[in-house]
C-alpha cells in the first residue's frame, strides 16, 4: 500500500512520517510519532479527548486526516511543560484537584489553552463554552472550570 509523506512541527520539533492515506492525525501521533497524550475516547468527534492545537486552533485529531496537516504547527499536552516546569494550566489542574482518572485531562488542557491564548481573563461562561466539547465523567466539571479560572488568575498576576 502506497504511503503518504507528511511533515509537521509537533511541540517545536520537526516530524516527518509516512502514513497510510486516510490515517487520522490521532493515530499518526499515537502510533507513528509516539505522542500518546491525545486520547481516543470516541473517534466520533463527541468527547474531545483527542483535542490538539493546529496552527493556533483547537481541533479534533480523530476527525483530522494526518496528510492534511502537512506543514502545520501542532501542539499537544505532552509538549506544554518547558524544561520540566509545568504550564500554569497544568499547575492549576494539580492544585485544584481537577483530575481523577486523567483520561480527559490532556484534551481539557488543550481546550483551555486555546481559550487563555485568546482570552487571558475569561469569564466563567467563557470557560464553560471553551470546555463544552470535552466530556468528563468523573469530576462533574466544576473542579476543571475552577482550574482554568485559577490558571487565568495566575497568568494575570504574573503579567502584572
Amino acid at each position, binding site marked *: *500500500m502506497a504511503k*503518504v509523506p507528511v511533515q509537521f512541527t509537533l511541540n517545536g520539533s520537526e516530524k516527518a512520517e509516512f502514513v*497510510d*492515506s*486516510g490515517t*487520522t492525525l490521532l493515530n499518526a501521533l499515537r502510533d507513528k510519532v509516539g505522542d500518546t497524550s491525545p486520547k481516543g475516547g470516541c*473517534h*466520533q*468527534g463527541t468527547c*474531545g479527548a483527542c*483535542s490538539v492545537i493546529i496552527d493556533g*486552533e*483547537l*481541533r*479534533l485529531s*480523530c*476527525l*483530522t*486526516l494526518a*496528510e*492534511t496537516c502537512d506543514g502545520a504547527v501542532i501542539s499537544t499536552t505532552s509538549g506544554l511543560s518547558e524544561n520540566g516546569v509545568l504550564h500554569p494550566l497544568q499547575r492549576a489542574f494539580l492544585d485544584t484537584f481537577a483530575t481523577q482518572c486523567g483520561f480527559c485531562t490532556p484534551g481539557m488542557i488543550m*481546550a483551555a489553552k*486555546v*481559550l487563555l491564548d485568546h482570552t487571558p481573563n475569561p469569564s466563567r461562561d467563557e470557560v*464553560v*463554552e*471553551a470546555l*463544552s*466539547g*470535552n466530556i468528563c465523567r468523573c469530576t462533574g466539571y466544576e473542579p476543571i472550570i475552577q482550574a482554568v479560572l485559577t490558571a487565568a488568575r495566575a497568568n494575570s498576576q504574573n503579567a502584572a
Partner: protein
Amino acid sequence: MALALQTFATVKDANAALKAQGTRYLGGGTLVVRAANEGDVSVSGLVTSTEPSLSTIAVAGDKVRIGASVTMATIAGHPELGTLAKAARAVGGPAIRNMATVGGNLFAPAPYGDFAVALLALDATVSTDSGETPIETFLANRDGSRAVVTSVNFTLPKADSFRFLKVSRVKPKGVSVLSIAAVLQQAPDGTVSAARIALGCMADRPMRARAAEKALIGRSLTKDGIAPALAAASDGTWPITDPIASAWYRNEVLPVHLGRLLLA
C-alpha cells in the same frame, strides 16, 4: 480497500474524481471521517479540493457569498456576519466549529444541521459548478447530490429581523431538540409584512413552517397576534424520534419555543 484521499486544486477535477464509486467529498471531516472511523465501509475514497474560492467569504452590500469550506468558527467571528453568529455558534463545541463547514452542514442529518436551518430561513441558494439551486430544492434532493457544493449565497437580513433559537437538553453544547430560524419583516405599525420560518428536527432535514409564516402576515408580535401562527406551527411536520426527544415531544414544544422566539 484502505481509505485514500485525493486532493485537487480545482473543484472541476474534484467533481470528476467524485464520479468513482465509493468516493465522498471531505470537507471538515466531522461527518465523513467519523463515518469511516465507525466502520462505514461504503466509503473507500475521499476527495477534496483546495480551490481558494471555497474558503472565502464575500460581502457586497447585503449580498453574501460564503464558500462551502468556510467553517462555523469563521462565520461566527466574521465582522460583517454578526447577525448569523448565533446560528454558527449553535453548531458543536469550539473544536467542531473550527472544522465543520457550511457545505457539510447542508448534508448533516437531523438532529444536526442547525446552520442549514438558518440558511433555509435566509432563502439562500446553493452553488455548484453546474449552477445555483434554491436551498429548499437542494435539501430535498441532497441524498442524491454528488457535485461539490462551492458556496451558499443569500441576502443578509437586518440584524433585528433575523431570529434564531436552538433548544438542546445539554448546555452549552448539546444537539438539538429542535431549532428555529426566522426572518421577519415588519410594517411601520409593527405588524408582520413578510415571514420565513425554518425548523430543524421537525423532519429528517430542515423544513419551512409555511402555515405558520402565512398565519403571521398582518399580525402583530403579541401573544394574541401570534396565536394563529403557533396553532399552525406543526402543520406538515414529521419530526424525528431519537435519543434526545420523541416526535411527540418535538411537536408539543414547537409552538412553545416558536412563541418565545417571536415574542423575544
